[in-house]
């Protein structure tokens, strides 16, 4: 049985297909079928010849096998310095091997490679900044995931996730109607407290077009209300698109490049339709990476930029605080030791460390902000990046991976962790669940709302 019923090389393109795969509890049959899945070596080799060009080839060739990248990888550190976790080893023994064998690898090899690609690397790109040759193993793992996806060797949840993007243009089964309804519902819920609060849908030429993470719509809709409240109080002229509102991309984690393109194009179409001055995305790291950093390339935009200037939520917030659009009541600033999680996707990989530091200056009483060590571009992955958080099969490995962040947080002594990234937020929640170190964690929005000075005319009358 080369192609399974659940596990095969075909991407999922229909809602029925998603439901069918979902009905296979924990992907049990899916993974069983994977053991029989055949490899299309010709296709694999052809793909490599067409897409693996000088950058990756050179990386693989000149890697000195010097091991300087070892210590930089948190998964190496946290797994007892297992030499099998050295970034260069991980990539040489997988992608390197596939290329050396010209794609003629067997099923067992591919399944092992899948584990390495998703459970031994979170694509945090930290090792890339520690290699003297400038070899970015994280990028190669991203590439390898694409090959594995093509051959059907992809974790169950990510196959579903990529399917969701194909069918719903969102990482979950949230439709465009659900999005607008939920946003309006949430605004209704809060309009008593914030008179005049609205959610402007599909307004052309607004200053800001706001995009979100579908998970907020599905499970944490307060986040939508909070975004609305902050824009409202800052006096922004903002809007949300009724289509093209989803910023995330599980397809990126899955290596489904075609789905990545489909997803990001809906957002770009919204930008082209509504012509906002800027796009602001929610507090999510990989969403920013997908839509702002990588997305333009998937969509074939040669200048590497989305159609409208696109910034991360922390950039907008820092700007609003710095310019006084939002004012913090100094008495309400955080007065307890607090630390900050730097998301790899927009700190190391997009240089936004100053924005978050600016925000901390505004919202934390001087002396209470404690940096993790290391921090900024050198910070470690939360432990759940690159899709790791969501993969049941690799849950055990993921829980081990959380130890790095746990120890970093413990070392700060802070009991409050600000995590302006969905993935990091999740990982930190899970690490509290798993290791119970007695911390609280939060996005920025709810924290900032609580300490705002609300201008007279925006206050509710009683």
């Amino acid at each position, binding site marked *: 049985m080369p192609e399974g019923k659940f596990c095969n090389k075909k991407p999922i393109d229909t809602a029925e297909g998603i439901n069918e795969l979902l009905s296979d509890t924990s992907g049990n049959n899916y993974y069983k079928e994977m053991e029989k899945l055949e490899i299309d070596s010709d296709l694999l080799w052809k793909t490599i010849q067409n897409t693996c060009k000088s950058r990756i080839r050179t990386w693989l060739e000149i890697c000195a096998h010097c091991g300087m990248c070892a210590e930089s990888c948190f998964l190496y550190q946290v797994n007892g310095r297992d030499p099998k976790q050295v970034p260069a080893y991980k990539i040489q023994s997988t992608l390197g091997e596939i290329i050396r064998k010209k794609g003629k690898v067997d099923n067992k090899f591919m399944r092992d490679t899948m584990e390495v690609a998703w459970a031994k690397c979170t694509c945090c790109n930290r090792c890339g900044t520690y290699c003297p040759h400038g070899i970015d193993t994280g990028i190669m793992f991203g590439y390898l995931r694409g090959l594995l996806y093509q051959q059907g060797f992809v974790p169950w*949840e990510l196959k579903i996730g990529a399917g969701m993007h194909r069918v719903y243009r969102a990482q979950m089964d949230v439709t465009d109607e659900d999005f607008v309804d939920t946003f309006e519902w949430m605004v209704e819920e809060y309009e008593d407290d914030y008179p005049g609060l609205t959610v402007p849908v599909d307004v052309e030429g607004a200053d800001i077009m706001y995009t979100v993470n579908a998970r907020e719509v599905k499970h944490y809709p307060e986040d939508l209300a909070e975004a609305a409240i902050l824009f409202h109080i800052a006096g922004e002229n903002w809007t949300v698109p009724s289509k093209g509102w989803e910023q995330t991309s599980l397809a990126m984690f899955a290596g489904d490049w075609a789905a990545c393109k489909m997803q990001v194009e809906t957002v770009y179409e919204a930008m082209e339709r509504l012509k906002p001055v800027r796009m602001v995305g929610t507090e999510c790291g990989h969403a920013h990476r997908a839509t702002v950093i990588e997305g333009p390339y998937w969509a074939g935009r040669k200048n590497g930029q989305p159609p409208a200037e696109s910034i991360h939520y922390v950039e907008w917030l820092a700007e609003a605080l710095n310019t006084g659009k939002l004012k913090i009541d100094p008495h309400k600033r955080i007065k307890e030791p607090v630390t900050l999680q730097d998301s790899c996707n927009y700190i190391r990989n997009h240089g936004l460390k100053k924005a978050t530091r600016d925000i901390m200056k505004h919202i934390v009483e001087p002396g209470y902000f404690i940096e993790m060590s290391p921090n900024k571009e050198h910070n470690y992955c939360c432990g759940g990046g690159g899709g790791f958080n969501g*993969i049941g099969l690799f849950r055990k490995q993921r829980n081990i991976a959380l130890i790095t962040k746990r120890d970093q947080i413990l070392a700060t002594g802070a009991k409050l962790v600000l995590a302006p990234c969905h993935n990091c937020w999740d990982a930190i929640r899970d690490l509290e669940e798993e290791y119970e170190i007695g911390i*609280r964690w939060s996005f920025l929005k709810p924290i900032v709302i609580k300490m705002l000075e609300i201008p007279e005319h925006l206050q509710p009358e009683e």
Partner: protein
Amino acid sequence: MGFDMFKKILFATSATAASDHAARVAFNIAKSYQSNLNIFHVMGVPTRGYSQVVVDVKTKEEVSVDEDYIAWVTEEIKTYYEKYLDESLKYSIDVAVGLPAREILRQAKTMKPDLILLGGTTGDEDETVYKKSLAGSTLQKVAKAANCPVLVVNRPAASFWGGLSNIVFGTDFSKTSDKAFDFAIKVAKALDCELSVFHALDITPLHTGKMLSQDEIEQQIRESLRKIRARYESRLKELKGYSMDVWEGIPFIEIVKYARDKHADLLIMAHHSRKVPSGDIRLGGNVEQVIVRAGCPVISINK
């Protein structure tokens, strides 16, 4: 006269012992007034971002949610409430995944119930994790945002819903309190009960800013009584019996004491969203405090 104020009831339950008191009241009301009872269970939020895995509030185990599992949970709930579920009861069971408060509100949004019924700890089993994410309690959030009365049963002592005869309505003279009063009057009329209107004068220095002299206190009590009369008495006269009182002290303690004194079967209060300091749940608003302490069911009204 038929009582038709609770035609549709949304009963949010963990289907564990924690909701037993609330369950007794829920089934009791539903049977007494031939309501449509929607038994609603929230399984928890997926533990991993976009995955299908949740920590089941009942078993505390990580489970993968799919159709089979939901069918199984529904069956479990049926078995758990077997003794209540007979022919005379019109009920349905729904199961959802997510944060309890949010999912209850979402269910309420589509179902538009006349009453939401919560156990004191409904859906909050997963204390360790969700509480600490600064999310606020289920109770507080539902009471704040619901568009219909929310009935909460916390203590076992509160789990009795018999023939109602005494209702206590606590007021703070706000607009929301007026709405709560409309509701209280309607219930009292329909069920032919006595209604006691009560106001607690907050004399905690924190509130007043200074220690009040006894003269000042008594002066304010008289004023409050006048206010009650002016606002409510004309309509209270339509009832078979009523009383009006003002006591001084810490408001939530006084109202609990008063309700006990009056042998109240039901307490009705307005929920004040804005006055509740959002972060801190335990020390939250008066209503939460009353709910935790009251010896009878409490209905909180918001809109």
